């Protein structure tokens, strides 16, 4: 195997070990959020304001009917309703008491669910985990700067911590600190983690899932859990380019970095091509699933700078409306 793929597909002379038992190459996160990163975030904030000029910020329409100013619907008057909201014009025309309903305006909750499992530690020169954290930090900054309430929840086989929702740009340093110090490692169990997430977070909001989605039991159940609990899933798939196109050759024992499962293969050109097709197919399946259920989906590899990806997200309008 080419040395360039050493980080994406690490040679190992040791037998497979339980996940988390070994040193994680992505554990060192001290240099993730430096001044340069902060400047990039500021730039992103400015650009995002320019892109979305005219939109109301921090006053998000919700499906809740409440005390907003935007008319939403009518309903039949019921005893005890506030007389101030009776539409007297309609009463004059239709001779029926109908109550005017307004959309309630409230703070937006943005939940950044970051996959910190062992598979995310793979990638070169930048591990996927670092890329995902930088991405999460960038989205957090934009959200915080726009007075949204941003919470960060790293997960692997369970939720590995929680940065409580907060807003305001000045909170970004807490985000950085949290991302630097949060626990990482473990197998990916998306469904279980989402289940826990929806249980613990009653305030609905945008659930941005940043992951490689390499879950042995599949990604569908996890995303469905979000959907079914009225969250708005936003899917960001991160992968390393050399995962998609590995440069392997010869007789190998492939060890799953999370499960430790070993599979002996003799890698030939045709097998590599078949794997690349299979990887592409897996990604397409995820994309198709998200499209089918109207979940914004973005796929990126670690070679694309995260700020470009953020801009792409803004331009597409899926992240902020």
């Amino acid at each position, binding site marked *: *195997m080419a040395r360039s793929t050493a980080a*994406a*597909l*690490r*040679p*190992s*002379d*040791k037998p497979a070990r339980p996940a988390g038992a070994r040193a994680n190459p992505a554990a060192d996160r001290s240099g993730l959020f430096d001044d340069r990163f902060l400047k990039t975030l500021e730039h992103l904030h400015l650009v995002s304001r320019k892109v979305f000029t005219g939109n109301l910020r921090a006053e998000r329409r919700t499906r809740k009917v409440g005390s907003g100013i935007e008319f939403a619907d009518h309903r039949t008057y019921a005893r005890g309703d506030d007389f101030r909201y009776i539409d007297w014009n309609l009463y004059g025309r239709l001779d029926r008491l109908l109550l005017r309903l307004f959309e309630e305006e409230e703070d937006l909750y943005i939940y950044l669910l970051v996959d910190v499992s*062992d*598979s995310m530690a*793979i990638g070169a020169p930048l591990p996927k985990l670092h890329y995902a954290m930088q991405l999460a930090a960038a989205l957090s900054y934009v959200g915080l700067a726009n007075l949204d309430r941003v919470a960060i929840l790293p997960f692997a086989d369970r939720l590995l911590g929680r940065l409580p929702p907060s807003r305001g740009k000045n909170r970004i340093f807490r985000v950085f600190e949290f991302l630097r110090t949060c626990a990482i490692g473990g197998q990916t169990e998306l469904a279980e983690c989402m289940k826990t997430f929806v249980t613990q977070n009653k305030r609905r909001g945008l659930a941005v899932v940043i992951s*490689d989605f*390499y879950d*042995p039991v599949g990604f569908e159940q996890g995303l469905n859990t979000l959907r079914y609990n009225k969250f708005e899933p936003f899917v960001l798939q991160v992968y*390393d380019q050399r*995962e998609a196109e*590995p440069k*392997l050759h*010869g*007789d*190998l*024992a*492939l*060890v*799953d*970095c*999370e*499960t430790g*499962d*070993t*599979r*002996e*293969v*003799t*890698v*030939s*050109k*045709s*097998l590599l091509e*078949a*794997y690349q097709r*299979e*990887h592409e197919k*897996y990604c397409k399946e995820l994309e198709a699933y998200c499209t089918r259920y109207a979940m914004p989906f973005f796929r990126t590899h670690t070679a694309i700078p995260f700020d470009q990806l953020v801009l792409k997200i803004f331009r597409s309008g899926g992240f902020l409306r």
Partner: protein
Amino acid sequence: MSFLGPIPLAVFAWVAGGATLLAIGAYIIKMRRRRFEVPFSRLWQRVLEQRDASALWKQLKRLLSLLLILFIIALMLFAALDPTLGAVDRQARSVILLFDASASMKAMDGSTLAKDPGDTSRLDAAKAAAKRLVDGMGGGDVAMVMKVDGQATPMSRFTGDGPMLDKIIDGLAASDTPADLPRALGAAADALRDRKNPLIVVISDGAFPEQQLGQIRWTPPPAPGSAAPPAPPPAPAASLATVDLSGIDVRYLPVGHRSDNVGIIAFNVRRYIANKAAYEVYIEVQNFGQEPAHRQLTLYNGETAVDVRRLDLAPGQRLHQIYAKLPASADDKLRAALRPVEGPGGSDPFALDDQAFALLPAKKKQKVLLVGAPNLFLEGALLVYENIDLLGRISPADYDARPAAAEGADVVIFDDYTPAVMPPPPASLLYFHPTGAASPIAVRGEVASPHITEIDEGHPVMRWVTLTDVFMDKTDAFAPDPRRGESTLAFSVRDSVIAAKRDGKRKILAVGFSLPAQGRDSATDLPMRVAFPMLLVNALDWFAGDQTDLLTTYATGSRERVPLDGVVGATEAEVKGPDARVTHTPVIDGLATFYASRVGYYDLQAKAPDGSVLARVELAANLASTEESDIAPSTKLTLGGPGGHPLAAPEAFAITHSQQLWLYLLLFAAGLILVEWITYHRRITV
């Protein structure tokens, strides 16, 4: 198809079984693989599950790979058996490569090019041909290299090691002697005795005398596959020298192509008996070619050219040249040389016989003292011999009074007088009628009216001497003791009348009867005969070691016995050859065995245990062989003389390489290994 490989079947079976098990085991054991971590093995699993649909084909490919390896192993093992196709169904042979290393093989016409550059000798061509034969040897064949010149010399043992045989062949050198083919074939037959498929390959120019070829009895063995003819009754050997090659396949490989040669075939020199200060030379030159030839013949005495003359020889002409009354010089070495001249027929490829060497017998003027009464017969006879210096005559009384009077004399003659005190060595002594206990050779008694019935004609003293009818009234009879170096030169029936003795460095001759003289009662007519001065001269020459019949020129390749003057007791002599190499030769009864392998001058020395030289003689050796000088190569060699069987052409010996399959099998196996390697690394067969 036949198999020439030397591997026994049992060993082969073990090797084949082991190799097969090893190959199968290598396929069965699990390969140690490099480990790589991947983020999501489920994707690989999916791919491999799809591929497992073709698992049967995959297993089949693996099986095919195993079968291919087994096939390659089988091919290699098959090649190790050295299989051959076609008619080569022979068994391993025992081959003797008999190299003619005689003088004629030095002829520089070994090149096979159309325009012979003259830089390749026949021996070089023979070596090249022999190497081709060695290269053509099959598995199990063994060969021995044997050289034949004047002797037969095995140069190796039987071996199948081609490079070693090539090395031995490279080291062969021709000598200056004729070839002794019967001796070599006899040695080869002895070496091949009890060996299967014996074969002798004679690599030569075929320059062998008919007499030698006639000594060999040989019938061609039946061709392989043909019915063997009924065995002829064993014919009695024509002579003890007959060499029987029955049952041995003998082949002949000729080399050389030119026949033009002019050579010196005889070169002799002798001093005149009467005048040893002069000598005459005899040279015989022959043109062996088919065209007229021209040469310049130069005779050297030492480094001085004595005579130069041009020779024009017709084809086959033999020319005799005599150089008479040449004055002797201090240098006793003579050399004759043929020089090429410009123009056609002026040169030839064989240089060895273009020069010849000879030595003049040593010449010495001896001082002779006569002790006895006045004797005109004796003194008169001595006067006629100019190679002596007669010191005079003294009476026996004077000698008795002063024996030292004999000091300084080389020869003392005692006439009818036997002194009590002998002159000290190295003075030689001649006694006429010695008597009493002081006689140098014991006297056994007196014989009346004797008749000389037998003389030792081989002794130098008796050369050309006839004593058949010599009258004498009486004589003393000696009792010579061979252990003391005493021998009888003339017998009267069984009585020793004249006897000789070697006593260290000096010689003694004793004549049993008295010469006629005044006051003596003996009577003999010997002084009246020619034999008397001859006897005296011969005796004096013998004393001086100056034997006119002593041959100083010998032919190379012949074994001769050379008398070493005055040597008693020495068993070995030192021989220094023309190449300055020193060898040793045995000495028996004063005769040294001399064998010359190179032309030129030789120096024989017999030494005492203390290192002092007892005797020394210089000799010259020449090719002097018309058979060797006649370098015309013979394309056919017929053993057994006229009516014999010609040896098969060399093509019959050629072992066809194309019928041997091992090389092709190995190449095929190598090709399959390459295919297997490529398909494995391209992941086709895995």
